[in-house]
């Protein structure tokens, strides 16, 4: 029978079961988040590097050398010995400097935290040793070391409710990362499609401003989708950029019928149909897709079939806690 030996204690592994699932089932408290190999909150260490290769995708070389692995992605073929690791060492301390509402559901959280990153990457924020969630970076690296996240409040959601209801200036959170590869490529001539729904706008906002700061010359199309017009945020800022930059076009697309009283230019359309019509030939495009999994998957396929290279389609998928 296959097993994982956790700090000396054998725990049976069911067929196809991950190390994380087996340990949780046994009642061990192992931090975890996306369960899809993305947030890196479930890091453990193994005695040797056999059986963990597939569970090391996205880890740093140093982490790999220490035989760290993502326990949610590890389905070992044979018995392995694992232990907790000091993940605190891979975090820096963040201090809340500001929080403010961007619209009815979305909060801006600003943290002072000292580390290097590229806009569009994400971090995993630790409220305490058991509660960790990933958030994308909407800010540009700046001298004051303040990062910004856009956090949508889900009533009943553990982390986002803490942000909305309790967090205040001076509170401390652990910041792990940066993670992810959804970043501006530096190829300044090609046309770009930057598409987001909901708080998928956070990484897009960072990528857009990086492209502008690096004097991107190709056309930049920003498409933001929402259910109702009141779900948009930063739309005035986006439209201001579009008005000032001749190569930037902003498309605000909403699913619900418009009341006609909207104070900004928004169109009612199915976002997939809309993109299909607006971007029929995507050969040579750089594509950035951010937000919920269904949105990213559907649009990724559509962009690919419209001619974009798979390697040029970057995605940041907001996998909810517990996995896709």
């Amino acid at each position, binding site marked *: 029978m296959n097993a994982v030996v956790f700090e000396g204690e054998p725990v049976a592994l069911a067929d196809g079961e991950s190390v994380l699932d087996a340990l949780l089932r046994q009642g061990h408290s192992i931090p975890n988040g996306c369960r899809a190999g993305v947030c890196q909150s479930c890091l453990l260490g193994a005695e040797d590097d056999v059986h963990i290769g597939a569970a090391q995708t996205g880890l740093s070389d140093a982490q790999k050398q220490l035989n760290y692995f993502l326990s949610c992605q590890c389905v070992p073929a044979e018995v392995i010995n694992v232990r907790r690791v000091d993940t605190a060492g891979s975090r820096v301390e963040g201090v809340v400097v500001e929080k403010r509402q961007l619209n009815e559901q979305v909060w801006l959280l600003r943290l002072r935290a000292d580390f290097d990153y590229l806009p569009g990457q994400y971090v995993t924020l630790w409220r305490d040793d058991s509660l960790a969630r990933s958030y994308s970076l909407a800010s540009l690296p700046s001298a004051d070391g303040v990062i910004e996240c856009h956090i949508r409040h889900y009533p009943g959601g553990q982390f986002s409710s803490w942000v909305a209801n309790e967090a205040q200036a001076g509170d401390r959170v652990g910041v792990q990362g940066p993670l992810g590869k959804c970043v501006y490529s530096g190829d300044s001539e090609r046309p770009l499609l930057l598409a987001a729904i909901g708080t998928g706008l956070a990484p897009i906002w960072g990528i857009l401003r990086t492209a502008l700061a690096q004097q991107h010359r190709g056309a930049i199309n920003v498409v933001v989708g929402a259910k109702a017009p009141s779900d948009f945020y930063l739309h005035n800022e986006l439209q201001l950029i579009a008005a000032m930059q001749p190569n930037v076009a902003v498309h605000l697309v909403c699913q619900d019928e418009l009341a006609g009283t909207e104070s900004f230019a928004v169109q009612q359309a199915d976002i997939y149909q809309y993109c299909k019509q607006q971007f029929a030939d995507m050969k040579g495009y750089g594509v950035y897709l951010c937000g919920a999994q269904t949105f990213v998957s559907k649009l990724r396929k559509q962009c690919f079939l419209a001619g974009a290279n*798979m390697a040029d389609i970057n995605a940041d998928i907001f996998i909810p806690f517990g996995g896709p």
Partner: protein
Amino acid sequence: MSVYEKIGGDAAVNAAVDIFYRKVLADDRISDFFDTVDMDAQHAKQKAFLTMAFGGPNSYTGKDMREAHKNMKLTDVHFGAVAENLVATLQELEVPQESIDEIVAICLSVKDDVLNV
């Protein structure tokens, strides 16, 4: 020299994979098999398929091919569709006919395993 080396090795696989995958996704006879949520993983498998079809380095056995396609209930129609899209891809890349013939022969050699007959 293997056909894989003749047509350019890994670079040929990279050149072919997007074209082939796009054709497969647009082909109603087979697109459902390939239309998974995890497009990255699927893309990697397309590369494994092409490397194998081109006679490149791989460690798949006939048994692996049976296993990989076991629960798909594949028929001659599916197999033919994949082969057609592959040939069309190679023609688009202006691969010489004799290399295309070799590649088709490699595919035919695993047909029974793929169809699990």
